[in-house]
């Protein structure tokens, strides 16, 4: 059964993105130049990649609020370690650190039985504290060994690296979400955790896995970010989790769990970037942009609850 309402629900974000792009194209013709499009896609990558991970968390009926802090910690780890280990070695260490922190989140949620929201709220404070302690609150600027520049300026098979990485992450995410037991379990847990438990799904292990996924995708985002900033700092990424959650929900992943939309997330991340980029090109000052982002977030949430209401009505 795919009624028109259902279709609208699935493709809503594509429609909004197209309309927004059209509006901005009329207001500022610069937005559709080739250079700006590459620019758009590159900027979208940081949020999009972390949002791919968040799609799993929200589909499983949870949240990860600690990713902003994990992003900060990633920039610090890379800023400190790239001079010693080289770009790839440092990224490997950062991925390991991210994986461990994600597992810690998962263990707190499953063993201490705290709601994901509050658990990751606490680790958000702790992880940022760790990042600040690690760099003593200072910038870890990369002067030597600029291999990390590859992660923004380089190309993979002729495609700019951030765009290639985004595509790679989303193809993997889609495959995992759609065709692997892990994806099926995540959806099952999100639909009904008790039923999932009763039918033998290893709920705790899957949840821990979900937090490892959100953390490691965030490390990838952090790698791109460090490569742009060429510095690590414990204050980076305040509010990053909000942007990522916005992208995920706007993309059609339902807050009530069980229904994710991987490609929707990608389009929504693009949409957010288009809006930010458009507001920039229109010359709006930073606080107004933040205000606009907050308002867009509210609209996205209101839409989500509206769609949920419609769905309930149909039953």
């Amino acid at each position, binding site marked *: 059964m795919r009624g028109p309402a259902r279709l609208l629900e699935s493709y809503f974000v594509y429609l909004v993105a197209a309309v927004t792009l059209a509006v901005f194209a009329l207001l500022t013709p610069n937005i559709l130049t080739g250079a700006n499009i590459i620019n758009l896609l590159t900027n979208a990558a940081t949020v999009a990649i972390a949002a791919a991970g968040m799609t799993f968390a929200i589909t499983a009926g949870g949240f990860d609020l600690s990713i902003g802090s994990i992003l900060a910690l990633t920039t610090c780890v890379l800023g400190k370690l790239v001079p010693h280990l080289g770009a790839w070695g440092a990224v490997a260490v950062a991925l390991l650190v991210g994986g461990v922190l994600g597992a810690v989140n998962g263990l707190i949620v499953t063993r201490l039985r705290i709601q994901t929201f*509050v658990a990751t709220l606490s680790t958000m404070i*702790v992880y940022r504290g760790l990042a*600040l*302690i690690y760099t003593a609150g200072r910038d870890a600027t990369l002067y030597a060994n600029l291999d990390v520049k590859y992660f923004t300026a380089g190309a993979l098979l002729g495609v700019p690296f951030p765009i290639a990485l985004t595509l790679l992450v989303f193809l993997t995410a889609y495959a995992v979400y759609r065709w692997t037991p892990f994806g099926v379990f995540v959806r099952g847990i999100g639909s009904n955790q008790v039923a999932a438990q009763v039918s033998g799904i290893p709920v705790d292990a899957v949840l821990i896995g979900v937090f490892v996924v959100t953390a490691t995708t965030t490390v990838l985002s952090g790698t791109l970010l460090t490569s742009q900033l060429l510095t690590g700092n414990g204050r980076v990424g305040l509010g990053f989790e*909000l942007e990522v959650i916005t992208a995920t929900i706007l993309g059609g992943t339902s807050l009530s769990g069980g229904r994710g939309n991987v490609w929707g997330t990608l389009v929504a991340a693009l949409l957010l970037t288009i809006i930010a980029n458009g507001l920039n090109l229109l010359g709006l000052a930073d606080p107004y942009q933040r205000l606009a982002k*907050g308002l867009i977030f509210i609209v996205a949430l209101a839409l989500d609850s509206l769609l949920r209401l419609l769905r309930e009505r149909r039953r």
Partner: protein
Amino acid sequence: MSRPPWFDLRERGILIAVALFWAICALANPMFHEESTYLSILREASFVGVAGIGMTFCIISGDFDLSVGSMLSLLAIACVAMVGHTGLILAVVLVTLLGAACGTLNGALIAILRIPAFIATLAMYFIYRALAYIVTNGQPVQFQERWFTAVGNGNLAGIPIPFVYLLILTAAGTYILRRTPFGRQVLAIGNSRRASEISGIRIARIRILIFAVVGAFTGIAALLISSRLWSANSGMKIGYEFDVIAAVVLGGTSLAGGKGSVVNTSIAAVFFASLNTAMNMFHVDSYMQRVVIGIVLLFAFSLNGIRSYVGERLRLRRAARDLGLAARRA
């Protein structure tokens, strides 16, 4: 026969925690022999505790308000801007009403648009701060009226004035929670939203009211803090919402809703203020302090889980024993 809750030490674990903590600090550091240390702890605790009273209602009803820190910044700016024109009494009234208005907006998003509370307030967290930045252009605002600094910095009969506010508001909050229909409805909603709905409580209205109450108490906290700091700005008190929620949760208010105590929230605020003071006195690195607070927070969040787990175990064991007895008798 139930004892009055104030004297029931089982309900006042946090009080024992504060006493123990003070005893340990007094043994380890002579600064904790001074009366002034404790008075300053009480003063600092009040800035969190006052907002904690409102948050207690919110968490009892099963919701959260993450926007209080940003709201506080906006309200403090409003307070500083108007106090010269309005005088103290009118400023208190206006900033409370303004807070209630912000809270009502939060409540409307949550109860009418049906956005989950913590996400709606997370969005408002950014919106209020952006507004604060826009109205001040990112510059700090100051007031010229010296008398207004007394509200946050002065003493009344040797007691810090903010703590006097905290005492009065704690009493008022307890009265509202335990003795008024509104308070009972808050408890009922927290216990079971469905049951309350079926028994005729108008959930949406009560929830909006709850967020208005959070806003009102945040308004008073904003007044105290702006007076304390002689100024306000759009970047002030980042992370304040965590301090407030931490105090409420450490005070034993259940995250699952339905249970909680305003008095315990205020005592827990004193605990956190003591912890901060002690960490400063023992020269704990300021970044390390965050980590410690995060871990205390995690501990507080898991307290209820641990408590209900132990309770469940005890009940199961008792049930098993009773069953065994019955079987033997049969």
